[in-house]
């Protein structure tokens, strides 16, 4: 077989790409394929894996009857799926937050570069440090948030008491959504929006202004459609990342509790893999997660893409 002749430049380019390419093959695609194999096996890491066919998937996704009712073989898994989806409600809130912040940061206000840095800071901070900080903020008795709520209550003469943020099933997930909002607000999404906003030609605004559009109309008819590719990208990435998220917050802050209410699919994978010696089962969960994310992304492309104006 003859390959098309490559120019000198192309060959140099491939040579530079080679290390990355090799790294991807060795450290990403091989493990990914291996995990596909493992998902059909039972493996406790310490002894050799044993092929068990589809047993892992049956245990994960199957149902059986008990006392005349259909019961999932692994009810915990479905609860963790629900938790993961619940945490996704943070995505649209985060998108609008980041957009709002980007619009503010796009104004010509003195010192804005400084504030852009400040807002970006949580993104580059170590996750563990940020999560520990929020754990202290959420401390029900001595944390800043509940102390603040109590002080505010004093001011208005009503005895207010903040919730048990992380140790109540009702509040724990919401507390994580709130925290993720804070972390992501000024992060990559805001930077992407900022770039998108600066790409919008000024003539469009001028034309809209001449047509008599007010600020609100200018936003919905010029800004919003012009940045729709960015919004689409952020939303898709948000869903992809969101489905695979939740490990670190659970690991550092809540241990996945109370009563499993902050355990996500990702944290369940970790527990199975590294805590409970069930690497094969963990691999099967990971592959189910991959397929779910893949299908949802396809749907997003198919239907979400329609609202994008290029």
């Amino acid at each position, binding site marked *: 077989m003859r390959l098309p002749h490559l120019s000198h430049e192309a060959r140099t380019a491939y040579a530079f790409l080679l290390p990355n390419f090799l790294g991807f093959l060795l450290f990403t695609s091989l493990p990914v394929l291996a995990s596909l194999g493992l998902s059909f096996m039972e493996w406790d890491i*310490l002894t050799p894996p044993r092929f068990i066919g589809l047993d892992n998937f049956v245990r994960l996704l199957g149902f059986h009857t008990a006392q005349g009712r259909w019961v999932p073989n692994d009810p915990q898994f479905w609860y963790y799926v629900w938790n993961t989806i619940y945490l996704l409600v943070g995505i649209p809130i985060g998108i609008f937050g980041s957009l709002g912040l980007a619009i503010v940061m796009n104004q010509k206000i003195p010192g804005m570069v400084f504030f852009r840095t400040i807002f970006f800071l949580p993104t580059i901070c170590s996750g563990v440090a940020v999560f520990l900080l929020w754990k202290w903020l959420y401390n029900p*008795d001595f944390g800043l948030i509940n102390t603040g709520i109590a002080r505010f209550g004093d001011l208005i003469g009503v005895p207010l008491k903040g919730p048990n943020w992380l140790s109540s*099933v009702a509040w724990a997930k919401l507390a994580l959504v709130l925290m993720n909002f804070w972390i992501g607000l000024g992060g990559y999404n805001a930077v992407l929006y900022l770039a998108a906003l600066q790409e919008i030609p000024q003539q469009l605004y001028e034309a809209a202004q001449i047509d008599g559009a007010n600020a609100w109309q200018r936003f919905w008819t010029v800004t919003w459609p012009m940045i729709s590719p960015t919004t689409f990208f952020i939303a898709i990435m948000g869903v992809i990342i969101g489905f695979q998220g939740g490990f670190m917050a659970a690991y550092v802050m809540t241990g996945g*509790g109370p*009563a*499993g209410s902050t355990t996500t699919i990702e944290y369940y994978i970790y*527990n199975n893999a590294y805590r409970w010696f069930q690497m094969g089962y963990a691999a099967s969960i990971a592959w189910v997660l991959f397929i779910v994310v893949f299908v949802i992304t396809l749907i997003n492309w198919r239907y979400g893409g329609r609202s994008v104006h290029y």
Partner: protein
Amino acid sequence: MNGLNIRMGISGRSAGSSAGRWAAWSAVVVLVLAASGCGQGGGSSGKPAAVKLVYMAPGFPLYDQVRIEQGKRFEQAHPGIRTQFQAVAGQGYREKLLTQFAGGSAPDVFFIRDFDLPQFAQKGAILPLDPLITNDPAFQRDDIYPQLLDAYTFGETLYALPGSSSTRVLYYNKRLFDEAGVAYPTAEWTWREFLDAAKRLTKRDERGIVAQYGASFYLDSADGWLIWILQNGGSLFDAGKTRCIINSSESREAIEFVKALSQEHKVVPGLMDQLNQDNYQLFLSQRAAMFIGGRWYTLNFRTASALAWDVAPLPSGEHRATPLDSHGWAISAHTKHPQEAWELVKQLVGPDGVRFVIEVGDSMPTLRSIAQSPYFPVDERYPQEQHNQVFLDAIEYAFSPKQIMHPQIEWYQMSSIINTEIDKFLIGQLSAERALQAVEDRLNVLIDEAGGA
């Protein structure tokens, strides 16, 4: 492998002068790969290969120094053996160890938590120590506390030796007791005295928000719950460990009592999950008057110069019970040098190491010869620690992980089930009866699965 094939393919089809350039590139790539990952082997050049032992433990600057020092002393005493210490910083120690086993590069000697030992031992990852001990008449096995040896014995086989250990006791803040006019805890305390004192030591502001807790303790893993359950006469498994029998009136009473401490009397902070990670800090910052913990907290409490504390045995229920926690040193079943590794283990668990972990306030003695010396009970550098004997005395009624675990069930999985279901009881979703029944059902399923496998 893949990378190599690609490289060969490409350079094979290049011609002329560019072939040299490709060869150069390939050489660079091979060198980089060799330097980054594959450089572990070797040792063939120069003089006859010295035996090299790798030993690994969770990293912590204070301990790392001592472990490296122990390795140096070992090298001096054993010419021809080189040692390399790997400290794994952060919390990823267990993951790293498992990954190394999976990849066939496990360290020769490694630190292992007592809870992990049954799985590692049963899956053949750890070398049994008995043959090595039999061949080593000089080794004083009987100097190690029998309870600790038992904790590391599965079947009739010993799998590790203890490096550090502690029972859990009741730490109390003397100043807060004095201020409240409450008498210090004694060995005679029962749950009732504990609750009475905790009530009198709890301070609330005018809104009812707690400013100082009577006590704080951890319930983030099953052993914390089992203190109360076993003290009240309950049990997790039957004697033959064929069934989980946690749903007894004794267990229910125990978890009701603990729930009431935090929710009815409000004398201990909320008890859910790992939020309790902060609980020792409540004691450290004098916002909790009592704390249940092992001697390793002494290391932290010494840093608070204003804190005047002492220790007493845990209050008792119908029975006495307290966990016996420990870390051991084990030898990988895959080591090429079992005899040398055994010598290193002896060094690591020997008197220097034991003295060190005692001295820094991390452990109680694992060796009886050191426990009986005046070294541990009173260290004049730490005058307020007059009652270290309390830790040792509790060993008589302490339970090791081995005693509470089921040999076929992984500890964290069992612990996670117990916590999740009891959480549901704490937040009012389930009654004590139904929560413990759920624990029973789920653990019995695991026992059945393990039996059927």
